[in-house]
């Protein structure tokens, strides 16, 4: 069950992206980016395992549910899984702030890539504002999601935080 926890938690988030929350049009990028962020975090957290193929599968599910370009969120999740794995190799530094910084840089680049990819897909310049807003919101939400996933994994935050992130104590 523990090994399935990352995939199940991301699946839960994918379903949540499809629920009619009544969010304004500008906020439509936030929930899918939370899914991408969760993939990134699960690949970053030492000991947790979310296979890239699983990340792609969950991204495809998000694509199918959103009715958007098939493969778009799968690609975003795969990139997050790849980068998250690389960022995970920094765990010896154990600085929450560093992970946050990596996510900030990563989501900025991912946003630009996503915007270009979507513009290419539709052969017209897509409105960039919702993407920028979603990316900014995801940066603000990063610690909440990260600690939330740690809580999901360990049942508590304190111990896990102290053992994993030196800078947090």
């Amino acid at each position, binding site marked *: 069950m523990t090994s399935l926890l990352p995939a199940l938690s991301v699946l839960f988030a994918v379903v949540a992206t*499809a629920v*009619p929350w009544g969010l304004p*049009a500008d906020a439509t990028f936030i929930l899918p980016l939370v899914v991408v962020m969760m993939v990134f975090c699960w690949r970053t957290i030492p000991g947790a395992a979310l296979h*890239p193929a699983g990340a792609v599968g969950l991204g495809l599910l998000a694509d199918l*549910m959103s*009715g958007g370009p098939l*493969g778009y969120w*799968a690609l975003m999740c795969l990139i997050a899984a*790849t980068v998250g794995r690389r960022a995970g*190799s920094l765990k010896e530094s154990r600085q929450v702030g560093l992970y946050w910084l990596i996510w900030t840089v990563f989501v900025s680049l991912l946003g630009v890539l996503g915007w270009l990819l979507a513009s290419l897909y539709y052969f017209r310049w897509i409105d960039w504002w919702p993407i920028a807003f979603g990316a900014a919101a995801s940066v603000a939400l990063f610690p909440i999601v990260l600690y939330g996933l740690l809580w999901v994994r360990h049942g508590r935050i304190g111990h896990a935080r102290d053992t994993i992130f030196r800078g947090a104590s």
Partner: protein
Amino acid sequence: MRERGSPLFRRHRPSWNAPVELLSFGLYFLCAVLLVLSRIGHGAINEARNGLVDLSGPMLELASVPAIEARRAMDRAKLYMAAFDEVDRLKKENEELRQWEWRTKLLERKVAQLRSLLNAVEEPALVYATGRVIADARGPFVRSALINLGRKDGLRVGYAVINGDGLVGRTVDAGGSVARVLLLNDLNSRIPVLVGPAGVRGLASGDNSAELQLDFLPAGATLYAGDEVYTSGSDGVLPRGLRVGVVTGSAGAYRVRPYAELNSLDAVSVLFFDAPALARTDPPAAADGMGALSAAPAQEPKAATASAGLPIAAVAPPAGEQAQAER
């Protein structure tokens, strides 16, 4: 070669792991292929999408219950907070509507007399089914919603979808029990419309924002903010006279603010308007013989009209010809 100083590269990197690297490459390739197939609208992709949406329908319906209830609770709380103002407003509106009711009755009588003088043909009745939005399939590039009505309910691709306020969009995918509605403000949405009392022709296009663009207006067309926009029916798919919204903006940059609140849809009705052009959007083969008429609910028909339609589209039909499937 000098070792790079960044922590990213300082640690020993794992050596080439062929299966893992190949798998990653394969996954990237798969995503690229899927994007291309999705772009060209490959049939297999659409079938897979419809199949999965159908499968996930019950789960989404269940998952959306808390969100819908929470939204309703918030709406109710807001309503309670502004209850006194709302009562005053409704009283005033009620008085105005009474006057309108009287005027409408006079006009209806006059229209009926003129129609009988002209020996005018009765307009076809609009059959509709009402369902609920079960999933908010809106992404940064897509403005769509999943509803709990499908081909089993007689729904076909291309049908207009309305709510109490006005036109919401049209169906673009239909599974057995779930359908996808492309909302008015989606990037791919194009609705031919008539604007204002003069009925100026135009095209309302979505651009993923809250309002629609108003394009292809005749040169020198004079519009005013607040002019009503309604469907022209010239695409041969949507019925004429469905309320879309009102004109905003100024000359050269006219926009349309939809009547329907597209961000928080709940109950919607699908109009079973079988126009000839539907053969293009949803060929009979795709419908598997489950066309709107063949699958009209077997229950006793009730008299009903489309709530969002202007009189042109919502001619009161003879009671026996009307069927309403409500879920």
